[in-house]
């Protein structure tokens, strides 16, 4: 049975992401086991990887300290489907101004930054709509204007790899996708039917292996 590892690096509520994946794996009758682990060996051998994350970008330091960064890089290198959620997506970039001393994975060359000061509230909390940019495997079946749940103060810029844009203060990358590496700024595990559809797309995707 394929193992989808939800990486535990001591950041935030992993159970809610894990149980949403479990529900979709069950519903779709997929031979995928959902495992929560912080062990580099387990991650290196995973068939599918999810990096959740709520909280501070600095917490991703634990990934470097525990050898998980190397394990993730190796897995991505052999084509394993990877999904980063919230801070887990931001970590795919070169870094974030939230913790300038802490590098990200650098899979996407740009960096994340805080929303520009404005009269709007920061953090961006609540349900906002997705503007899907091109054929996205992750967002297949999601209609324009469907809403997903966000809670964040930092965001990734819109680039060629951006799969969906959301507008709040300024346009930002709500989803990013290149080859087997995907990320979402919103919380699919908290985004009702739309979110579960996105998690199902990730689990069903065959990858480039």
């Amino acid at each position, binding site marked *: 049975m394929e193992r989808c590892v939800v990486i535990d690096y001591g950041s*935030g*509520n992993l*159970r*809610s992401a894990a*149980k*949403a994946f479990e*529900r979709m794996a069950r519903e779709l009758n997929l031979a995928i086991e959902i495992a929560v682990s912080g062990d580099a060996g387990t991650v290196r051998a995973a068939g599918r990887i999810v990096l959740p994350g*709520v*909280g*501070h970008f600095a917490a991703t330091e634990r990934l470097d300290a525990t050898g998980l960064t190397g394990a993730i890089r190796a897995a991505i290198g052999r084509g394993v489907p990877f999904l980063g959620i919230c801070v887990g997506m931001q970590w795919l970039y070169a870094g974030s101004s939230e913790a300038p001393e802490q590098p990200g994975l650098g899979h996407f060359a740009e960096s994340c930054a805080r929303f520009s000061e404005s009269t709007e*509230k*920061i*953090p*961006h*909390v*609540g*349900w*906002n*709509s997705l503007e899907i940019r091109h054929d996205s495997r992750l967002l297949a079946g999601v209609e324009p204007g469907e*809403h997903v*749940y966000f*809670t*964040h*103060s930092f965001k990734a810029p819109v680039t060629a790899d951006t799969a969906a844009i959301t*507008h*709040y203060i300024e346009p930002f990358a709500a989803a990013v996708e290149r080859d087997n590496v995907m990320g979402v700024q919103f*919380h699919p*595990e*908290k*985004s*009702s*039917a739309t*979110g*579960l559809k996105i998690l199902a797309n990730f689990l069903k995707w065959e990858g480039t292996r």
Partner: protein
Amino acid sequence: MITKRIIACLDCHDGRVVKGVQFVDLIDAGDPATQAARHAREGADEIVLLDITATHEGRQTLLDTVRRTAHELFVPFCVGGGIRSADDAAQVFEAGADKVSVNSAALANPMLIDNIGRSFGAQAVVVAVDARRDPNAADPVRDAQVFVQGGRKLAGRRVVEWAREAEQRGAGEILLTSMNADGMRTGFDCELTGAVSEAVGIPVIASGGAGTVEHFVDVFGRGKADAALAASIFHFGVSSARALKQELAKAGVSVRLPC
């Protein structure tokens, strides 16, 4: 475009949903896990579970309730009541909550806000403020007072100042309950909500007084609320979040639809 959130609130006592008027005269309104799932299915954007048990034995019941409620819930889930330390908060997160709401304990020990925020992120900390206008004050809104212990005791803080301090300490949202309006179904306190919303840069959830669609239109407009909490209008099948949001959309409020 960011939408205004409709949050279903479940007041719980000893593992059951209850409803009272101005925090007294409680009546039974069902099982929390069943009610939460129903609200989510009927279009609620978020679920808040406020435990009013507050006894030591009640803690285990609460954690069990949170676990059961979170199990099949795929919208944001906030839990409040009796959270006195970062450890209490950790247990509630472990049981499946996405956010905790703190009230009396944060007033007694404001560092609680900093501590939970540092460990779990600002997005996970909601500071609940129970407010009552001071009818004898020169400015009943600016001088509105914070109450603690389920509304029984004056905290000795003014509402707007306390909300601002909570933000500075790392709160991610303010849940503002007008005790004058709570359970009365005569409308939110839009003046007070607006004063708080303008004073802070974080989202404000308005609570207390919902009775009609117009009340929600009003609090999102004049009250500048980012979200609104509703308990009584959803109970006993009076209405649903979806029906409410369809009416709000007609009135020009941006809401999550379809849902």
